[in-house]
C-alpha cells in the first residue's frame, strides 16, 4: 500500500503546480523526490537514484574506492569515505559535485557524523585507531586506539556513546564520546562489521560477518551482550549466511539485517528478537537504508551490481535498480 500511495503522489502534485511554481523557480530542489545515494566501490562513483521513478538520475565521480557515506548535520553535504585516496570526499547536495576533500588517515572505511558537534568519526583499519575529524575546521581532533582492524562504527542518538567494532579482535569497543576514549571492550561474533543503535539509544546491534550473527548490547547499564541472534536460512549453506548491514525502524518494530552472500535480508522483531522472515534480494547484499517515512528499504548488492527495493509493508522485494560495480553503501537524503 505505501508503494501505491507514493506512486500517486506526482499526479496530486501536478494539480498544485501553479501554486508552487514561484517557489520552484526560487529553489527547484524542493520539488525533487527523495534521493538515494549508492557508493560503487569498484567504479569510484556514487549513483543517485530518484525515489519516485526508482531510476538512476545521476552518477557522481568521486575518489578511489568509495564505501561508507554520511550526511553533514545540516544536511548540505554528503561525506564519502574514499579508502584508496585516504580521504573523505564532500559532495555538495545541490550541485552534486565533490566540492572538497579532507584527509582522513589510512584506508577509511566506515564513517559516522556526531549529532552535536561538527565531528566525523572514521575507522582506520590499518592503524587500529578511530580518527576524529572536525569537518568545519578541517582538522584532526584526536585518534582513539582500539583493537585490530576497526571497521563498524555506531553512534548513540544523543551522541554520548560511540561503538567501534574490530574485525580481527572480534570486539565492540564502547567509546565515551566526551572523553574520547574506549571504556568497555566486549567480545562479539567473528569479524564484526556494523554497529547500529536503537532509536531510543538503549541497545546497540552489532553484526558479525563470519559468525553470521547479531549481538545486542545493553547500552543502559552493563554494556554487555544481552542477546545473540543467529540466522538459519532454509536451503542455504550456513557459511554463506554472513551478517553485515543493520537498520532499525524508528517505531521499534523491525530490524533488517543484510546477510551477505546468502542473498537474503533478515527481518527481525526488534522487541522479541525473533527472526520473522528472509527476503531474497540481489547477490552479496551488503548495506541497507530506510527511506524517510520508512516505507521502503534499499539494499546494495555487491556482486549483482544493483539495488533491491523492498516494500516494508508486506516485506516484499519490488524492484532491482542496476547501479555501478560493487555497490557498497546506501543512504537516503533526510
Amino acid at each position: 500500500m505505501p508503494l501505491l500511495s507514493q506512486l500517486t503522489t506526482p499526479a496530486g502534485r501536478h494539480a498544485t503546480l501553479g501554486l508552487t511554481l514561484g517557489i520552484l523557480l526560487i529553489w527547484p530542489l524542493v520539488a525533487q523526490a527523495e534521493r538515494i545515494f549508492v557508493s560503487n566501490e569498484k567504479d569510484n562513483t556514487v549513483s543517485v537514484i530518484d525515489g519516485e521513478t526508482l531510476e538512476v538520475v545521476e552518477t557522481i565521480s568521486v575518489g578511489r574506492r568509495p564505501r561508507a557515506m554520511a550526511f553533514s548535520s545540516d544536511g548540505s553535504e554528503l561525506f564519502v569515505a574514499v579508502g584508496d585516496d585516504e580521504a573523505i570526499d564532500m559532495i555538495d547536495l545541490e550541485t552534486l559535485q565533490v566540492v572538497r576533500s579532507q584527509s582522513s588517515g589510512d584506508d577509511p572505511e566506515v564513517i559516522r557524523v556526531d549529532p552535536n558537534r561538527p565531528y566525523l568519526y572514521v575507522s582506520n583499519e590499518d592503524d587500529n585507531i578511530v580518527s576524529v575529524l572536525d569537518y568545519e575546521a578541517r582538522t584532526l581532533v584526536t585518534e582513539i586506539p582500539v583493537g585490530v582492524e576497526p571497521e563498524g562504527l555506531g553512534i548513540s542518538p544523543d551522541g554520548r556513546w560511540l561503538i567501534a567494532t574490530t574485525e580481527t579482535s572480534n570486539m565492540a569497543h564502547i567509546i565515551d564520546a566526551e572523553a574520547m576514549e574506549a571504556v568497555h571492550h566486549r567480545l562479539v561474533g567473528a569479524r564484526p562489521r556494523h554497529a547500529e543503535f536503537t532509536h531510543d539509544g538503549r541497545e546497540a546491534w552489532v553484526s558479525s560477518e563470519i559468525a553470521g550473527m547479531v549481538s545486542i548490547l545493553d547500552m543502559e547499564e552493563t554494556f554487555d551482550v544481552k542477546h545473540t541472534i543467529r540466522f538459519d536460512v532454509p536451503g542455504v549453506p550456513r557459511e554463506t549466511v554472513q551478517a553485515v548491514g543493520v537498520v532499525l525502524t524508528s517505531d521499534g518494530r523491525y530490524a533488517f539485517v543484510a546477510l551477505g552472500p546468502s542473498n537474503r535480508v533478515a527481518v527481525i522483531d526488534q522487541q522479541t528478537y525473533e527472526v520473522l522472515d528472509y527476503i531474497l534480494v540481489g547477490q552479496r547484499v551488503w548495506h541497507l537504508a530506510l527511506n524517510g517515512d520508512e516505507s521502503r528499504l534499499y539494499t546494495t548488492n555487491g556482486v549483482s551490481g544493483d539495488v533491491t527495493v523492498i516494500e516494508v509493508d508486506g516485506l516484499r522485494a519490488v524492484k532491482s535498480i542496476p547501479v555501478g560495480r560493487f555497490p557498497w553503501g546506501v543512504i537516503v537524503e533526510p
Partner: protein
Amino acid sequence: MRIKSPTLRWLVAGSFAAGLGWSSTLPADTPAPITLGYLGMERPDDREPLSVLAPVLDDEGLQGARLGINDNNATAQFLDQEFVLHEAEVAQGDDVGEALQGLIDQGADWIVSGLPAEALLEVMAHPALGDRVVFNAGTPDDALRGESCHPNLYHTTPSRRMLADALAQFLGYKQWERWALVYGNTDEDRILAETLKAAAERYGHRIVGDKMWPHDPMARRAEGGFHAIQREIPVFVQDLPEHDVLVIADETDYFGEYFPFQTWAPRPVVGTQGLVATAWHRAHESWGAVQLQRRFEKLADRWMTPRDFAAWLAVRSLGEAAARTGSVDRETVIDYMLGEEFELAGYLGLPVSYRTWNHQLRQPILVTGPRMVASVSPQEGYLHPRTPLDSLGADEGESPCRF
C-alpha cells in the same frame, strides 16, 4: 648473508612479545602468558625459486607467526592475556629434537612447525613433546593427516589433496576435463602426481597422458637457458594426447616455470606453476585480505607467502580460542578449537575451522595466476552435506586417520 652454523641456530634468544609495548601495560595479577615456540628448518642450499623475480626467503613461516602474536596481543590487552613467541631454526640434517627441547626449556607450551614431513614426524615422536599440541604450518603431506596422523597434531596448511581438489573443481567449472600431466623426479612430485590423479577421478576429469620431466635440479642458473628450453619443451610434450590443460607437478619449483608459452599445443599450464591452487597469494585482496597483506608487509618488509599464512592461522587459532574461553588452559582451549563454536576469520570469505577426524583446518583455497586471483574454491555447485569446504581434501568417511 646467511649465517652458517653446523648446529642449531637460535634466531632470537629472547621472546617476541608484540613489540608494541602492550605487555608492559598489563596489570600485575596477569595470569601466565601463553607461550608458543616456532620451530623451523633452514632452506636447503639448492632450493631457490626458478624465476629470479621470486625472492629467496629465509624467514618464511616465522614472520607469519610473529604477526599472529602481534594480532593476538592487540586483542589480549583487553582481556588480561598475553602471547609470547620463542623461535628456533635447525640447519639441514641437524637434530630437531634438540631444538624442540630448547623451545620447551624456554617455556613453550604450544609448537608451530615449519618443518618438512620427516622432521615433523620426529618431533611428534620425541619424548620431550609430552602432550603439547603441534601446529603443522609447513608440509602438505597427506600421510600426516592420514595413516601417520596424531591426536596432538593440527594442520593449518592445506594438504596436497585439498590443493588438488581445489584446482580440479575450478577446471571442472571451466570444463577443461582432459588433462596431460608432467611431474618432476622428486618423491614429493611423484606423490603429488598420484594426488592429482585421485582429484581428477573424484571430479570427473580424465588424465589422457603423463610424463616425468627428468631435469637435473643442479642446472637451474644457466645463462640464456631459454634457447634450449624453447626447443626442448615443445618436443617433450608433443607426443601427449590431445588435452585441454597441461598440469604440472613440480613442488620444488625446478622446471615448471619453463612450461607456460612453450607448449606444443596452445594450452594453459596449471598445477604448481601457471594457474595454481594455494592457501595464500599476494594478489588476494578480497574479504579484507588487503589489511592482512598490509600488516604483514609492514612487519616483514616482504610479501606474505602461504607458509606465513599457515603459521599466522595457527597462532590466531590459539588467540581466538583463548579469547573466547577466557582461558589459557590447554584442554579448555583445544576443546573449544575442535568445537562447533570455533570459527576463525581467515580473510577467505568463509570461516575456517578444524576437521575433527584429522585436525585439518578446512579452508577456502585460492586459484590464482602469477599476478591475479582467478577464483576461490570450493566452486559453486560442488555440494557437501556438512559444508562445501569439506569437498576439498579427505572427507570423514575416507580418511584413514584414527586417533
